[in-house]
Protein backbone atom coordinates (compact mmCIF):
# COMPACT_ATOMS: atom_id res chain seq x y z
CA UNK A 1 0.00 0.00 0.00
CA UNK A 2 2.70 2.42 0.98
CA UNK A 3 4.30 2.40 -2.47
CA UNK A 4 1.05 3.58 -4.05
CA UNK A 5 0.98 6.86 -2.18
CA UNK A 6 3.63 8.63 -4.27
CA UNK A 7 1.76 7.57 -7.39
CA UNK A 8 -1.39 9.25 -6.18
CA UNK A 9 0.61 12.34 -5.34
CA UNK A 10 1.91 12.42 -8.91
CA UNK A 11 -1.60 12.17 -10.26
CA UNK A 12 -1.08 8.73 -11.81
CA UNK A 13 -3.94 6.95 -10.07
CA UNK A 14 -7.13 7.66 -8.23
CA UNK A 15 -7.97 4.63 -6.14
CA UNK A 16 -9.50 2.18 -6.50
CA UNK A 17 -8.55 1.71 -10.14
CA UNK A 18 -11.06 0.17 -12.50
CA UNK A 19 -10.36 -3.48 -13.29
CA UNK A 20 -12.25 -3.23 -16.59
CA UNK A 21 -9.00 -3.48 -18.62
CA UNK A 22 -8.39 -6.92 -17.12
CA UNK A 23 -11.93 -8.00 -18.03
CA UNK A 24 -11.27 -6.94 -21.65
CA UNK A 25 -7.97 -8.84 -21.63
CA UNK A 26 -9.81 -11.86 -20.20
CA UNK A 27 -12.37 -11.70 -23.04
CA UNK A 28 -9.52 -11.48 -25.54
CA UNK A 29 -7.93 -14.61 -24.06
CA UNK A 30 -11.29 -16.41 -24.40
CA UNK A 31 -11.42 -15.40 -28.10
CA UNK A 32 -7.98 -17.00 -28.53
CA UNK A 33 -9.20 -20.16 -26.81
CA UNK A 34 -12.10 -20.19 -29.28
CA UNK A 35 -9.78 -19.68 -32.21
CA UNK A 36 -7.59 -22.53 -30.98
CA UNK A 37 -10.64 -24.77 -30.73
CA UNK A 38 -11.85 -23.89 -34.26
CA UNK A 39 -8.43 -24.41 -35.83
CA UNK A 40 -8.13 -27.74 -34.00
CA UNK A 41 -11.24 -28.87 -35.96
CA UNK A 42 -9.19 -28.35 -39.13
CA UNK A 43 -6.14 -30.16 -37.77
CA UNK A 44 -5.57 -33.23 -39.93
CA UNK A 45 -3.87 -35.19 -37.14
CA UNK A 46 -0.62 -35.78 -39.04
CA UNK A 47 2.79 -34.55 -37.91
CA UNK A 48 3.18 -32.77 -41.26
CA UNK A 49 0.02 -30.78 -40.60
CA UNK A 50 1.11 -30.07 -37.00
CA UNK A 51 4.55 -28.83 -38.06
CA UNK A 52 4.04 -27.12 -41.47
CA UNK A 53 0.24 -26.92 -41.97
CA UNK A 54 0.56 -29.18 -45.04
CA UNK A 55 1.96 -26.25 -47.12
CA UNK A 56 -1.48 -24.65 -47.35
CA UNK A 57 -1.02 -21.00 -46.29
CA UNK A 58 -1.79 -18.20 -48.78
CA UNK A 59 -0.18 -14.72 -49.24
CA UNK A 60 -2.16 -12.68 -46.69
CA UNK A 61 -1.90 -15.19 -43.86
CA UNK A 62 1.79 -15.71 -44.64
CA UNK A 63 2.41 -11.95 -44.39
CA UNK A 64 0.49 -11.66 -41.14
CA UNK A 65 2.06 -14.73 -39.57
CA UNK A 66 5.62 -13.87 -40.62
CA UNK A 67 5.24 -10.23 -39.59
CA UNK A 68 3.48 -11.15 -36.32
CA UNK A 69 6.24 -13.61 -35.54
CA UNK A 70 9.01 -11.07 -36.00
CA UNK A 71 7.22 -8.45 -33.89
CA UNK A 72 7.30 -9.28 -30.21
CA UNK A 73 7.67 -7.35 -26.95
CA UNK A 74 10.89 -6.17 -28.58
CA UNK A 75 8.90 -4.15 -31.13
CA UNK A 76 6.34 -2.52 -28.84
CA UNK A 77 7.59 -2.46 -25.25
CA UNK A 78 11.29 -2.61 -26.18
CA UNK A 79 11.28 -0.02 -28.96
CA UNK A 80 9.32 2.49 -26.88
CA UNK A 81 11.70 1.98 -23.96
CA UNK A 82 14.78 2.19 -26.15
CA UNK A 83 13.53 5.41 -27.82
CA UNK A 84 12.95 6.78 -24.31
CA UNK A 85 16.69 6.19 -23.67
CA UNK A 86 18.31 6.61 -27.11
CA UNK A 87 15.85 8.81 -29.01
CA UNK A 88 14.71 8.67 -32.64
CA UNK A 89 17.82 6.85 -33.85
CA UNK A 90 16.27 3.60 -32.60
CA UNK A 91 14.02 3.51 -35.69
CA UNK A 92 17.04 3.48 -37.97
CA UNK A 93 18.87 1.01 -35.75
CA UNK A 94 16.29 -1.71 -36.10
CA UNK A 95 13.14 -0.77 -38.03
CA UNK A 96 14.16 0.79 -41.34
CA UNK A 97 17.14 -1.55 -41.66
CA UNK A 98 14.80 -4.49 -41.04
CA UNK A 99 12.60 -3.30 -43.90
CA UNK A 100 15.55 -3.85 -46.20
CA UNK A 101 17.27 -6.82 -44.58
CA UNK A 102 14.26 -8.91 -43.51
CA UNK A 103 12.72 -8.67 -46.97
CA UNK A 104 16.12 -9.56 -48.47
CA UNK A 105 16.25 -12.68 -46.30
CA UNK A 106 12.73 -13.67 -47.43
CA UNK A 107 13.52 -12.98 -51.07
CA UNK A 108 17.02 -14.35 -51.35
CA UNK A 109 16.97 -17.19 -48.85
CA UNK A 110 13.36 -17.84 -47.80
CA UNK A 111 12.03 -18.72 -51.26
CA UNK A 112 14.90 -21.15 -51.88
CA UNK A 113 14.47 -22.76 -48.46
CA UNK A 114 10.74 -23.11 -49.14
CA UNK A 115 11.46 -24.76 -52.50
CA UNK A 116 13.78 -27.34 -50.90
CA UNK A 117 11.27 -27.91 -48.10
CA UNK A 118 8.50 -28.50 -50.62
CA UNK A 119 10.58 -30.69 -52.90
CA UNK A 120 12.30 -32.83 -50.30
CA UNK A 121 9.73 -32.72 -47.49
CA UNK A 122 11.68 -30.91 -44.79
CA UNK A 123 9.84 -29.87 -41.68
CA UNK A 124 12.66 -28.09 -39.86
CA UNK A 125 15.69 -26.00 -40.73
CA UNK A 126 18.08 -28.56 -39.25
CA UNK A 127 16.72 -31.31 -41.52
CA UNK A 128 17.68 -29.11 -44.46
CA UNK A 129 21.18 -28.40 -43.10
CA UNK A 130 21.70 -32.06 -42.26
CA UNK A 131 21.02 -33.03 -45.88
CA UNK A 132 22.73 -30.08 -47.48
CA UNK A 133 25.93 -30.60 -45.52
CA UNK A 134 25.78 -34.41 -45.50
CA UNK A 135 26.15 -34.63 -41.74
CA UNK A 136 23.93 -36.10 -39.06
CA UNK A 137 26.31 -34.73 -36.42
CA UNK A 138 25.66 -31.16 -37.57
CA UNK A 139 22.04 -31.60 -36.47
CA UNK A 140 23.11 -32.63 -32.97
CA UNK A 141 25.41 -29.59 -32.78
CA UNK A 142 22.84 -27.12 -34.10
CA UNK A 143 19.86 -28.38 -32.10
CA UNK A 144 21.02 -27.24 -28.61
CA UNK A 145 22.44 -23.99 -30.03
CA UNK A 146 19.25 -22.99 -31.86
CA UNK A 147 17.00 -24.14 -29.00
CA UNK A 148 19.27 -22.28 -26.57
CA UNK A 149 19.06 -19.08 -28.63
CA UNK A 150 15.26 -19.32 -28.71
CA UNK A 151 15.09 -19.23 -24.90
CA UNK A 152 16.23 -15.56 -24.64
CA UNK A 153 13.78 -14.76 -27.44
CA UNK A 154 10.97 -16.35 -25.41
CA UNK A 155 12.21 -14.44 -22.38
CA UNK A 156 11.85 -11.16 -24.29
CA UNK A 157 8.14 -11.92 -24.64
CA UNK A 158 7.52 -13.04 -21.09
CA UNK A 159 9.48 -10.21 -19.43
CA UNK A 160 7.89 -7.64 -21.75
CA UNK A 161 4.38 -8.89 -21.03
CA UNK A 162 4.99 -9.00 -17.30
CA UNK A 163 6.42 -5.48 -17.16
CA UNK A 164 3.70 -4.03 -19.35
CA UNK A 165 0.77 -5.60 -17.46
CA UNK A 166 2.47 -4.79 -14.15
CA UNK A 167 2.64 -1.13 -15.14
CA UNK A 168 -0.85 -0.83 -16.51
CA UNK A 169 -2.51 -2.60 -13.56
CA UNK A 170 -0.51 -0.68 -10.95
CA UNK A 171 -2.92 0.25 -8.16
CA UNK A 172 -5.69 -2.16 -9.21
CA UNK A 173 -5.12 -4.66 -6.41
CA UNK A 174 -3.90 -2.71 -3.37
CA UNK A 175 -3.12 -5.03 -0.50
CA UNK A 176 -3.15 -8.13 -2.71
CA UNK A 177 -0.03 -7.66 -4.80
CA UNK A 178 3.06 -5.45 -4.44
CA UNK A 179 2.25 -1.95 -5.77
CA UNK A 180 -1.28 -3.23 -6.36
CA UNK A 181 -0.11 -4.53 -9.75
CA UNK A 182 -0.59 -7.92 -11.38
CA UNK A 183 2.81 -9.59 -10.87
CA UNK A 184 4.95 -10.74 -13.80
CA UNK A 185 4.74 -14.40 -12.76
CA UNK A 186 0.95 -14.34 -13.07
CA UNK A 187 0.97 -12.60 -16.47
CA UNK A 188 3.57 -15.09 -17.72
CA UNK A 189 1.54 -18.03 -16.43
CA UNK A 190 -1.66 -16.85 -18.15
CA UNK A 191 -0.13 -16.08 -21.55
CA UNK A 192 1.93 -19.29 -21.59
CA UNK A 193 -1.20 -21.31 -20.78
CA UNK A 194 -3.29 -19.65 -23.50
CA UNK A 195 -0.59 -20.02 -26.15
CA UNK A 196 0.10 -23.62 -25.14
CA UNK A 197 -3.60 -24.39 -25.48
CA UNK A 198 -3.98 -23.19 -29.03
CA UNK A 199 -0.59 -24.49 -30.14
CA UNK A 200 -1.45 -27.93 -28.74
CA UNK A 201 -4.82 -27.80 -30.49
CA UNK A 202 -3.59 -27.46 -34.02
CA UNK A 203 0.18 -26.92 -34.17
CA UNK A 204 1.52 -24.43 -36.67
CA UNK A 205 -1.90 -24.08 -38.36
CA UNK A 206 -3.33 -22.72 -35.08
CA UNK A 207 -0.27 -20.51 -34.71
CA UNK A 208 -0.82 -19.08 -38.21
CA UNK A 209 -4.51 -18.42 -37.58
CA UNK A 210 -3.82 -16.87 -34.18
CA UNK A 211 -0.92 -14.84 -35.60
CA UNK A 212 -3.08 -13.42 -38.38
CA UNK A 213 -5.80 -12.43 -35.95
CA UNK A 214 -3.36 -11.07 -33.37
CA UNK A 215 -1.29 -9.14 -35.90
CA UNK A 216 -4.42 -7.34 -37.12
CA UNK A 217 -5.38 -6.62 -33.49
CA UNK A 218 -2.01 -5.18 -32.48
CA UNK A 219 -1.62 -3.08 -35.63
CA UNK A 220 -5.07 -1.51 -35.22
CA UNK A 221 -4.83 -1.06 -31.46
CA UNK A 222 -1.31 0.32 -31.76
CA UNK A 223 -2.54 3.08 -34.07
CA UNK A 224 -5.60 3.78 -31.91
CA UNK A 225 -3.42 3.94 -28.80
CA UNK A 226 -0.99 6.27 -30.52
CA UNK A 227 -3.76 8.69 -31.53
CA UNK A 228 -5.28 8.65 -28.03
CA UNK A 229 -1.91 9.27 -26.33
CA UNK A 230 -1.07 12.10 -28.76
CA UNK A 231 -4.48 13.65 -28.13
CA UNK A 232 -4.01 13.24 -24.38
CA UNK A 233 -0.75 15.19 -24.46
CA UNK A 234 -2.41 17.97 -26.47
CA UNK A 235 -1.79 16.93 -30.06
CA UNK A 236 1.10 15.66 -32.17
CA UNK A 237 2.83 19.04 -32.40
CA UNK A 238 2.42 19.78 -28.71
CA UNK A 239 3.82 16.36 -27.75
CA UNK A 240 6.95 16.76 -29.88
CA UNK A 241 7.38 20.37 -28.76
CA UNK A 242 7.47 19.19 -25.13
CA UNK A 243 10.29 16.82 -26.03
CA UNK A 244 12.12 19.60 -27.89
CA UNK A 245 11.95 21.75 -24.76
CA UNK A 246 12.80 19.16 -22.11
CA UNK A 247 14.74 16.38 -23.85
CA UNK A 248 15.98 17.82 -27.17
CA UNK A 249 18.76 15.23 -27.40
CA UNK A 250 16.12 12.56 -28.12
CA UNK A 251 15.22 14.25 -31.44
CA UNK A 252 18.69 13.66 -32.88
CA UNK A 253 21.37 10.99 -32.82
CA UNK A 254 24.34 13.19 -31.93
CA UNK A 255 25.69 12.24 -28.51
CA UNK A 256 23.55 9.12 -28.20
CA UNK A 257 25.09 6.95 -30.93
CA UNK A 258 27.88 7.16 -33.47
CA UNK A 259 27.67 6.39 -37.22
CA UNK A 260 29.81 3.25 -36.69
CA UNK A 261 27.53 2.02 -33.93
CA UNK A 262 24.50 2.79 -36.11
CA UNK A 263 25.95 0.99 -39.12
CA UNK A 264 26.90 -2.13 -37.17
CA UNK A 265 23.27 -2.52 -36.12
CA UNK A 266 22.45 -3.37 -39.75
CA UNK A 267 23.83 -6.85 -39.14
CA UNK A 268 21.28 -7.59 -36.41
CA UNK A 269 18.20 -8.05 -38.69
CA UNK A 270 20.07 -10.79 -40.60
CA UNK A 271 18.91 -12.97 -37.73
CA UNK A 272 15.53 -13.57 -39.43
CA UNK A 273 17.32 -15.59 -42.10
CA UNK A 274 18.33 -18.08 -39.40
CA UNK A 275 15.28 -18.04 -37.10
CA UNK A 276 14.13 -21.68 -37.04
CA UNK A 277 10.54 -20.59 -36.32
CA UNK A 278 10.53 -18.35 -39.37
CA UNK A 279 11.90 -21.17 -41.51
CA UNK A 280 8.90 -23.18 -40.37
CA UNK A 281 6.54 -20.35 -41.35
CA UNK A 282 8.17 -20.19 -44.79
CA UNK A 283 7.44 -23.89 -45.22
CA UNK A 284 3.73 -23.35 -44.55
CA UNK A 285 3.43 -21.32 -47.81
CA UNK A 286 1.16 -22.80 -50.45
CA UNK A 287 3.44 -21.61 -53.27
CA UNK A 288 6.47 -19.41 -53.87
CA UNK A 289 4.07 -16.69 -55.04
CA UNK A 290 2.73 -16.48 -51.48
CA UNK A 291 6.00 -14.76 -50.58
CA UNK A 292 5.42 -11.79 -52.89
CA UNK A 293 3.10 -9.87 -50.59
CA UNK A 294 5.34 -10.58 -47.59
CA UNK A 295 8.45 -9.26 -49.35
CA UNK A 296 6.75 -6.01 -50.44
CA UNK A 297 4.55 -5.23 -47.45
CA UNK A 298 6.91 -6.21 -44.63
CA UNK A 299 8.80 -2.83 -44.57
CA UNK A 300 5.48 -0.96 -44.51
CA UNK A 301 4.07 -3.10 -41.69
CA UNK A 302 7.22 -2.46 -39.66
CA UNK A 303 6.81 1.28 -40.23
CA UNK A 304 3.15 1.23 -39.15
CA UNK A 305 4.07 -0.41 -35.84
CA UNK A 306 7.44 1.19 -35.05
CA UNK A 307 6.93 4.90 -35.89
CA UNK A 308 4.17 5.35 -33.26
CA UNK A 309 6.24 3.45 -30.67
CA UNK A 310 9.31 5.63 -31.27
CA UNK A 311 7.26 8.80 -31.01
CA UNK A 312 5.61 7.60 -27.77
CA UNK A 313 9.11 6.80 -26.43
CA UNK A 314 10.57 10.25 -27.15
CA UNK A 315 7.41 11.99 -25.91
CA UNK A 316 7.77 9.93 -22.71
CA UNK A 317 11.36 11.16 -22.39
CA UNK A 318 10.18 14.77 -22.67
CA UNK A 319 7.44 14.29 -20.11
CA UNK A 320 9.78 12.43 -17.76
CA UNK A 321 12.36 15.21 -17.97
CA UNK A 322 9.58 17.70 -17.33
CA UNK A 323 8.63 15.75 -14.19
CA UNK A 324 5.10 15.03 -15.39
CA UNK A 325 5.52 11.30 -16.10
CA UNK A 326 6.22 8.73 -13.43
CA UNK A 327 8.42 5.81 -14.53
CA UNK A 328 9.25 3.11 -11.94
CA UNK A 329 12.92 2.79 -11.11
CA UNK A 330 15.23 -0.19 -11.49
CA UNK A 331 17.32 -1.36 -8.50
CA UNK A 332 20.24 0.69 -9.89
CA UNK A 333 18.16 3.87 -9.69
CA UNK A 334 17.70 4.28 -13.45
CA UNK A 335 14.14 4.57 -14.84
CA UNK A 336 12.79 1.22 -16.05
CA UNK A 337 12.58 1.81 -19.82
CA UNK A 338 10.47 -1.36 -20.24
CA UNK A 339 7.70 0.34 -18.25
CA UNK A 340 7.52 3.54 -20.35
CA UNK A 341 4.77 2.30 -22.69
CA UNK A 342 2.51 1.17 -19.85
CA UNK A 343 3.09 4.42 -17.96
CA UNK A 344 2.17 6.47 -21.04
CA UNK A 345 -0.97 4.37 -21.55
CA UNK A 346 -1.91 4.74 -17.93
CA UNK A 347 -1.42 8.47 -17.93
CA UNK A 348 -3.15 9.36 -21.19
CA UNK A 349 -5.79 6.70 -21.75
CA UNK A 350 -8.63 7.49 -19.44
CA UNK A 351 -11.17 5.06 -20.85
CA UNK A 352 -10.67 1.66 -19.13
CA UNK A 353 -12.20 -0.19 -22.11
CA UNK A 354 -9.64 1.42 -24.39
CA UNK A 355 -6.82 0.57 -21.98
CA UNK A 356 -8.04 -3.03 -22.03
CA UNK A 357 -8.17 -3.14 -25.83
CA UNK A 358 -4.74 -1.55 -26.21
CA UNK A 359 -3.27 -3.93 -23.63
CA UNK A 360 -4.83 -6.87 -25.48
CA UNK A 361 -3.03 -5.51 -28.56
CA UNK A 362 0.32 -5.48 -26.75
CA UNK A 363 -0.22 -9.03 -25.54
CA UNK A 364 -1.28 -10.00 -29.07
CA UNK A 365 2.09 -8.84 -30.41
CA UNK A 366 3.89 -10.86 -27.77
CA UNK A 367 1.82 -14.02 -28.10
CA UNK A 368 2.01 -13.97 -31.89
CA UNK A 369 5.73 -14.64 -31.52
CA UNK A 370 5.58 -17.04 -28.60
CA UNK A 371 3.27 -19.44 -30.43
CA UNK A 372 5.60 -19.88 -33.41
CA UNK A 373 8.59 -20.32 -31.12
CA UNK A 374 6.72 -22.93 -29.07
CA UNK A 375 5.80 -24.97 -32.16
CA UNK A 376 9.33 -24.61 -33.46
CA UNK A 377 11.12 -25.97 -30.38
CA UNK A 378 8.73 -28.91 -30.40
CA UNK A 379 9.40 -29.56 -34.09
CA UNK A 380 13.15 -29.37 -33.62
CA UNK A 381 13.16 -31.76 -30.69
CA UNK A 382 11.04 -34.33 -32.53
CA UNK A 383 12.58 -34.10 -35.98
CA UNK A 384 16.14 -33.09 -35.24
CA UNK A 385 16.89 -34.89 -32.00
CA UNK A 386 14.49 -37.69 -31.04
CA UNK A 387 13.82 -39.20 -34.48
CA UNK A 388 17.44 -39.24 -35.72
CA UNK A 389 18.58 -40.63 -32.38
CA UNK A 390 15.96 -43.35 -31.82
CA UNK A 391 14.79 -43.95 -35.41
CA UNK A 392 11.72 -42.62 -37.16
CA UNK A 393 10.04 -46.04 -37.39
CA UNK A 394 9.99 -46.34 -33.62
CA UNK A 395 7.25 -43.71 -33.27
CA UNK A 396 3.75 -43.46 -34.69
CA UNK A 397 2.66 -40.14 -36.18
CA UNK A 398 0.61 -39.36 -33.06
CA UNK A 399 3.58 -40.13 -30.82
CA UNK A 400 5.72 -37.71 -32.86
CA UNK A 401 3.20 -34.93 -32.21
CA UNK A 402 3.21 -35.74 -28.48
CA UNK A 403 7.00 -35.79 -28.36
CA UNK A 404 6.96 -32.25 -29.72
CA UNK A 405 4.30 -31.17 -27.24
CA UNK A 406 6.25 -32.62 -24.32
CA UNK A 407 9.42 -30.74 -25.21
CA UNK A 408 7.47 -27.51 -25.70
CA UNK A 409 6.23 -27.76 -22.10
CA UNK A 410 9.77 -28.49 -20.89
CA UNK A 411 11.22 -25.38 -22.60
CA UNK A 412 8.29 -23.18 -21.54
CA UNK A 413 8.76 -24.17 -17.89
CA UNK A 414 12.50 -23.37 -18.02
CA UNK A 415 11.87 -20.01 -19.69
CA UNK A 416 9.06 -19.17 -17.31
CA UNK A 417 11.23 -19.81 -14.24
CA UNK A 418 14.10 -17.70 -15.67
CA UNK A 419 11.69 -14.85 -16.50
CA UNK A 420 10.66 -14.65 -12.85
CA UNK A 421 14.17 -14.54 -11.42
CA UNK A 422 16.25 -12.80 -14.08
CA UNK A 423 14.53 -9.70 -15.46
CA UNK A 424 16.57 -7.43 -17.78
CA UNK A 425 16.12 -4.91 -20.59
CA UNK A 426 13.82 -6.39 -23.22
CA UNK A 427 15.60 -4.58 -26.03
CA UNK A 428 19.11 -5.59 -24.98
CA UNK A 429 18.13 -9.20 -24.35
CA UNK A 430 16.57 -9.29 -27.82
CA UNK A 431 19.73 -7.86 -29.39
CA UNK A 432 21.95 -10.56 -27.84
CA UNK A 433 19.60 -13.26 -29.05
CA UNK A 434 19.40 -11.78 -32.57
CA UNK A 435 23.19 -11.37 -32.69
CA UNK A 436 23.67 -15.11 -32.26
CA UNK A 437 21.21 -15.90 -35.04
CA UNK A 438 22.74 -13.21 -37.30
CA UNK A 439 26.19 -14.75 -36.97
CA UNK A 440 24.77 -18.11 -38.10
CA UNK A 441 23.10 -16.51 -41.13
CA UNK A 442 26.20 -16.87 -43.39
CA UNK A 443 25.66 -20.63 -43.13
CA UNK A 444 22.09 -20.33 -44.45
CA UNK A 445 23.21 -18.00 -47.24
CA UNK A 446 26.15 -20.21 -48.24
CA UNK A 447 23.90 -23.28 -48.16
CA UNK A 448 21.79 -21.95 -51.03
CA UNK A 449 24.37 -19.89 -52.99
CA UNK A 450 27.86 -21.32 -52.48
CA UNK A 451 28.57 -24.78 -53.89
CA UNK A 452 32.03 -24.92 -52.33
CA UNK A 453 30.91 -24.62 -48.70
CA UNK A 454 31.81 -27.77 -46.76
CA UNK A 455 30.63 -29.61 -43.69
CA UNK A 456 33.86 -28.80 -41.84
CA UNK A 457 33.43 -25.12 -42.73
CA UNK A 458 29.95 -25.11 -41.27
CA UNK A 459 31.11 -26.85 -38.08
CA UNK A 460 33.88 -24.27 -37.73
CA UNK A 461 31.44 -21.41 -38.29
CA UNK A 462 28.96 -22.69 -35.69
CA UNK A 463 31.71 -23.21 -33.12
CA UNK A 464 33.28 -19.78 -33.82
CA UNK A 465 29.84 -18.17 -33.38
CA UNK A 466 29.10 -20.03 -30.15
CA UNK A 467 32.50 -19.24 -28.62
CA UNK A 468 32.60 -15.52 -29.52
CA UNK A 469 28.93 -15.02 -28.57
CA UNK A 470 29.41 -16.68 -25.17
CA UNK A 471 32.63 -14.75 -24.55
CA UNK A 472 31.11 -11.36 -25.36
CA UNK A 473 27.87 -11.95 -23.46
CA UNK A 474 29.88 -13.02 -20.40
CA UNK A 475 32.03 -9.91 -20.75
CA UNK A 476 28.98 -7.66 -21.12
CA UNK A 477 26.63 -9.12 -18.54
CA UNK A 478 28.71 -11.33 -16.28
CA UNK A 479 31.39 -8.83 -15.29
CA UNK A 480 31.14 -5.67 -13.23
CA UNK A 481 30.95 -2.31 -15.03
CA UNK A 482 34.41 -1.04 -15.94
CA UNK A 483 36.01 -4.49 -15.76
CA UNK A 484 35.19 -5.66 -19.30
CA UNK A 485 37.90 -7.45 -21.28
CA UNK A 486 36.84 -6.38 -24.77
CA UNK A 487 34.25 -3.62 -24.82
CA UNK A 488 32.80 -0.71 -22.93
CA UNK A 489 29.28 0.11 -21.85
CA UNK A 490 27.92 3.32 -23.32
CA UNK A 491 24.30 4.57 -23.34
CA UNK A 492 23.11 1.22 -22.01
CA UNK A 493 24.88 -0.74 -24.78
CA UNK A 494 27.98 -2.87 -24.84
CA UNK A 495 30.26 -1.76 -27.69
CA UNK A 496 33.57 -3.20 -28.90
CA UNK A 497 35.78 -0.67 -30.71
CA UNK A 498 32.67 1.51 -31.04
CA UNK A 499 30.53 -1.09 -32.81
CA UNK A 500 28.02 -3.76 -31.75
CA UNK A 501 29.49 -7.16 -30.79
CA UNK A 502 27.46 -8.71 -33.62
CA UNK A 503 30.01 -7.29 -36.07
CA UNK A 504 32.84 -9.32 -34.52
CA UNK A 505 30.72 -12.45 -34.01
CA UNK A 506 29.67 -12.33 -37.69
CA UNK A 507 33.27 -11.76 -38.76
CA UNK A 508 34.45 -14.80 -36.78
CA UNK A 509 31.64 -16.86 -38.31
CA UNK A 510 32.41 -15.82 -41.90
CA UNK A 511 36.18 -16.24 -41.57
CA UNK A 512 35.73 -19.74 -40.13
CA UNK A 513 33.15 -20.70 -42.76
CA UNK A 514 35.12 -19.51 -45.77
CA UNK A 515 38.60 -20.39 -44.49
CA UNK A 516 37.82 -23.94 -43.41
CA UNK A 517 35.61 -24.62 -46.46
CA UNK A 518 38.39 -23.66 -48.85
CA UNK A 519 40.87 -25.81 -46.92
CA UNK A 520 38.71 -28.94 -46.92
CA UNK A 521 37.30 -31.38 -49.46
CA UNK A 522 34.33 -30.05 -51.50
CA UNK A 523 30.90 -31.67 -51.10
CA UNK A 524 29.88 -34.60 -53.33
CA UNK A 525 28.47 -33.98 -56.80
CA UNK A 526 25.21 -35.69 -55.74
CA UNK A 527 24.70 -33.05 -53.06
CA UNK A 528 25.55 -30.21 -55.44
CA UNK A 529 23.10 -31.55 -58.04
CA UNK A 530 20.41 -31.94 -55.41
CA UNK A 531 20.67 -28.41 -54.04
CA UNK A 532 21.65 -26.49 -57.17
CA UNK A 533 19.06 -27.86 -59.58
CA UNK A 534 18.85 -24.82 -61.84
CA UNK A 535 21.52 -22.74 -63.51
CA UNK A 536 22.24 -19.20 -62.43
Amino acid at each position, binding site marked *: MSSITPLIALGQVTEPLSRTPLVIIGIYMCVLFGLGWISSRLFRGSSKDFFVASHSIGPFMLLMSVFGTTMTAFALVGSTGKAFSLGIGVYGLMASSSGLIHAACFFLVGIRMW*SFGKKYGYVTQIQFFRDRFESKGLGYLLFPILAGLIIPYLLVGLIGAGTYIGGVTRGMFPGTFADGAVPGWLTGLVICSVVLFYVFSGGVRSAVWANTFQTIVFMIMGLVGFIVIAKGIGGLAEASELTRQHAPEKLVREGLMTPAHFMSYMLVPLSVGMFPHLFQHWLTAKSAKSFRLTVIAHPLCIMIVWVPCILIGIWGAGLFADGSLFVPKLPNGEPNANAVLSMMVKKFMVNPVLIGLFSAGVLAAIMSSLDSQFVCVGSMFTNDFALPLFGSERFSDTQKVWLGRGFIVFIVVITYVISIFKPMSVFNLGIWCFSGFSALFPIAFAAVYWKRVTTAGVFASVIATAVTWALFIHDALGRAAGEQWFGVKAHGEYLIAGVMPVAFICLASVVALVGVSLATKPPTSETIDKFFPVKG
Partner: protein
Amino acid sequence: MKKVVYGLLILLAVIHQDVWWWDNGELVFGFMPLGLFYHSLYSCMAAGVWAMAVKWAWPSDIELWAESGDEAGGEQ
Protein backbone atom coordinates in the same frame (compact mmCIF):
# COMPACT_ATOMS: atom_id res chain seq x y z
CA MET B 1 16.30 -4.69 -65.24
CA LYS B 2 17.46 -7.29 -62.72
CA LYS B 3 20.79 -5.47 -62.41
CA VAL B 4 19.02 -2.15 -61.84
CA VAL B 5 17.02 -3.72 -59.02
CA TYR B 6 20.13 -5.12 -57.34
CA GLY B 7 21.84 -1.74 -57.83
CA LEU B 8 18.92 0.00 -56.12
CA LEU B 9 19.09 -2.43 -53.19
CA ILE B 10 22.79 -1.63 -52.71
CA LEU B 11 21.97 2.07 -52.94
CA LEU B 12 19.33 1.60 -50.24
CA ALA B 13 21.92 -0.02 -47.97
CA VAL B 14 24.23 2.98 -48.51
CA ILE B 15 21.67 5.74 -47.95
CA HIS B 16 20.56 4.09 -44.72
CA GLN B 17 23.67 5.66 -43.16
CA ASP B 18 22.25 9.20 -43.18
CA VAL B 19 25.07 10.93 -41.35
CA TRP B 20 24.26 14.21 -43.10
CA TRP B 21 21.51 15.17 -40.59
CA TRP B 22 22.84 13.37 -37.57
CA ASP B 23 22.31 16.40 -35.30
CA ASN B 24 19.34 18.00 -37.06
CA GLY B 25 16.36 18.02 -34.69
CA GLU B 26 14.00 19.93 -36.99
CA LEU B 27 10.35 18.86 -36.77
CA VAL B 28 8.73 17.99 -40.12
CA PHE B 29 4.97 18.83 -40.23
CA GLY B 30 5.48 20.28 -36.76
CA PHE B 31 5.80 16.92 -34.97
CA MET B 32 8.02 14.44 -36.82
CA PRO B 33 11.77 14.67 -36.07
CA LEU B 34 13.68 14.89 -39.37
CA GLY B 35 15.75 11.74 -38.77
CA LEU B 36 12.62 9.72 -38.06
CA PHE B 37 10.80 11.22 -41.05
CA TYR B 38 13.68 10.27 -43.35
CA HIS B 39 13.78 6.69 -42.11
CA SER B 40 9.99 6.38 -42.42
CA LEU B 41 10.33 7.45 -46.06
CA TYR B 42 13.17 4.96 -46.33
CA SER B 43 10.77 2.16 -45.28
CA CYS B 44 8.41 3.23 -48.09
CA MET B 45 11.30 3.29 -50.57
CA ALA B 46 12.35 -0.20 -49.44
CA ALA B 47 8.81 -1.48 -50.12
CA GLY B 48 8.95 0.13 -53.57
CA VAL B 49 12.28 -1.43 -54.47
CA TRP B 50 11.11 -4.84 -53.23
CA ALA B 51 8.02 -4.48 -55.44
CA MET B 52 10.41 -3.93 -58.37
CA ALA B 53 12.43 -6.97 -57.30
CA VAL B 54 9.29 -9.11 -57.23
CA LYS B 55 8.40 -7.93 -60.74
CA TRP B 56 11.80 -8.01 -62.42
CA ALA B 57 14.06 -10.27 -60.38
CA TRP B 58 11.69 -13.02 -59.25
CA PRO B 59 13.41 -16.46 -59.04
CA SER B 60 10.97 -18.12 -61.45
CA ASP B 61 13.42 -20.94 -62.22
CA ILE B 62 13.56 -22.20 -58.66
CA GLU B 63 9.81 -21.73 -58.29
CA LEU B 64 9.12 -23.84 -61.38
CA TRP B 65 11.55 -26.51 -60.22
CA ALA B 66 9.92 -26.72 -56.76
CA GLU B 67 6.43 -26.96 -58.15
CA SER B 68 7.24 -29.53 -60.82
CA GLY B 69 6.61 -33.21 -60.02
CA ASP B 70 5.70 -34.77 -56.70
CA GLU B 71 7.00 -33.88 -53.31
CA ALA B 72 9.75 -36.20 -52.31
CA GLY B 73 9.35 -35.75 -48.59
CA GLY B 74 6.05 -37.13 -47.50
CA GLU B 75 5.37 -37.41 -43.81
CA GLN B 76 8.59 -36.62 -42.03
